[in-house]
């Protein structure tokens, strides 16, 4: 299997802080790829550059054979990159179902005119959006919360909803930023099953996670960042034994 995402010497600094120092890595189609590192290592910054929220100061990304345009988040989504946020960002005052329906935006067409005239095509598309959103809520097992406002969901359900919303964009690469943060053991186990299921259904996954056990058990390959620099990129068994990683992160 070829590389789905190729990061080439991605650099990003904030004033004097070098959040990313020429990070190069490549994610293969169909794998679960872990990105770990101590706090402030630059993991979220990497996501933000990848999804177009930040413009890298150097380097760039190639996604399924074509370069990604910097600073164009909606195009990243259109190309097939979806993400969740470390500090959950849902549309708080919309229902769970509506949140997922918004996720369908990029794969649907209806415009103002269609909506005003309620054309047949618009009505059919709207019904399909709703149906797909309901199916996705079912997929992440929060279908009974469909009509609750996003902000009233439990923490774990909010994380699931965010994943469902990301899946609604039909991503080829799903980027999860600490999805297990704040979850208890049962919830984490359920999350792990969910992530494996998503991969089985054909979506490549890039996972930032502090829960080392989860990462090592789940991921096919892992990359370690420290002070913005890539320390190692390899299978979990090798990464776990690497002296630099133990010093920088695991041993601490």
């Amino acid at each position, binding site marked *: 299997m070829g590389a789905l995402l190729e990061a080439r010497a991605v650099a990003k600094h904030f004033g004097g802080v070098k959040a990313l120092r020429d990070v190069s890595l490549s994610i293969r189609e169909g794998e679960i790829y872990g990105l770990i590192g101590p706090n402030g290592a630059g993991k979220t910054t990497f996501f933000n550059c990848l*999804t*177009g*929220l930040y413009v890298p100061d150097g380097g760039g990304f190639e996604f399924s054979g074509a370069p990604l345009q910097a600073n164009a*988040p*909606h195009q*990243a*989504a*259109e190309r097939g990159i*979806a*993400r969740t*946020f470390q500090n959950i*960002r*849902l*549309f*708080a*005052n*919309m229902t769970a179902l*509506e949140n997922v*329906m*918004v*996720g*369908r*935006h*990029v794969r*649907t067409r*209806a*415009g*103002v005119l*269609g*909506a*005003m005239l*309620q054309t047949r095509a*618009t009505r059919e*598309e*709207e019904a399909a*959006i709703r149906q797909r959103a309901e199916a996705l809520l079912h997929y992440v097992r929060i279908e009974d919360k469909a009509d609750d*406002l996003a902000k*009233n969901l439990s923490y774990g359900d909010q994380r699931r909803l965010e994943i469902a*919303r*990301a899946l*609604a*964009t039909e991503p080829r690469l799903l980027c999860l930023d600490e999805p297990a943060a704040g979850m208890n053991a049962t919830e984490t186990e359920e999350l792990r099953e969910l992530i494996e299921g998503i991969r089985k259904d054909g979506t490549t996954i890039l996972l930032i996670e502090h829960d080392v056990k989860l990462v090592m058990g789940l991921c096919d390959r892992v990359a370690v960042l420290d002070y913005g620099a890539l320390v190692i990129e390899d299978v979990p068994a090798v990464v776990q034994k690497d002296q630099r990683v133990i010093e920088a992160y695991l041993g601490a």
Partner: protein
Amino acid sequence: MKRWLNPRSALGITLITAALVALPFVVAMGGQAWVRIVNFAILYIFLALGLNIVVGFAGLLDLGYIAFYAVGAYTWALLASPHFGLHWPIWAILPIGAGLACVAGVLLGSPTLKLRGDYLAIVTLGFGEIVRIFMNNLNAPVNITNGPQGITLIDPVAFGAFKFSGNSQIFGFTISGPQKYYFLLVALAVIVVIINLRLQNSRIGRAWQAIREDEIAAKAVGINTRNIKLLAFAMGASFGGVAGGIFAAMQGFVSPESFSLIESVMILAMVVLGGMGHIPGVILGAVLLTFLPEVLRYGVGPLQMAVFGKMLVDPESLRMLVFGLALVLVMRFKPAGLWPSPERKRELTGGA
């Protein structure tokens, strides 16, 4: 589709229709002036619902909305008056007015939509003033707008030989000009309500709400926030343009004075006071804010005479004073507006 045909809704719709038909005739007993005030209330409903798309749906604070109304009004005035000797028909002018207003909306929107909140409000405010000042000064070197004197003798709305000004006889009834405009305005208002409802529950409507809720998350799910915001601006502006055209035709006269900042503020106040983003609330806001000043105009003078036996405060000043006080009180005790949408109420009270 399926639900609104149940007997109760059918009865409701029948009653509302009957009331709407009877209204201009009942009100006319108090004089045609009241019919004109009712007409303005409906025109303001139209305007407020247009602005509601920008402010209520997309969450973009626009303080220059009246500029689009001005563009529509002047389009009508220039294309259907002796000023240029043009007398184009409504089906040509109204779309042109809406189109030009839409272009103005995009022109204003494209450089400013990176701004948010207060900053956007200030730029739009400036834009509104610029348009008014343009209208005021475009009488030299080439006289386009006739400057502060404005344009007079503007053609009324007409479909063929049927004119909306002056009395006509229909089925032996005499129906006045304002009453005819009333029915036209109601028809337009119904259309704009339906469009608002449909937009709200559409893919685009959801995208607007998503941007309002969390712009970064909206971008991350693939919404082209810039274009979708521009769309809100363009839509709102087009509605303003149509309203402006009807205004010019109804009044027969336009001048820059009608498009001052206070008008933008009033329309915004209708949206906010009624219940931002909630269509029935916005309608209520428009009706109240049109009538309250008029009621006060006729009410405060006689009231003072009755209570104090003489005029203590100039009725005009007192009117604005009471009006301002009412606004402050509403915002103090009902921050989500008089009739907010259920969600927004929850949002502001913080409860579930």
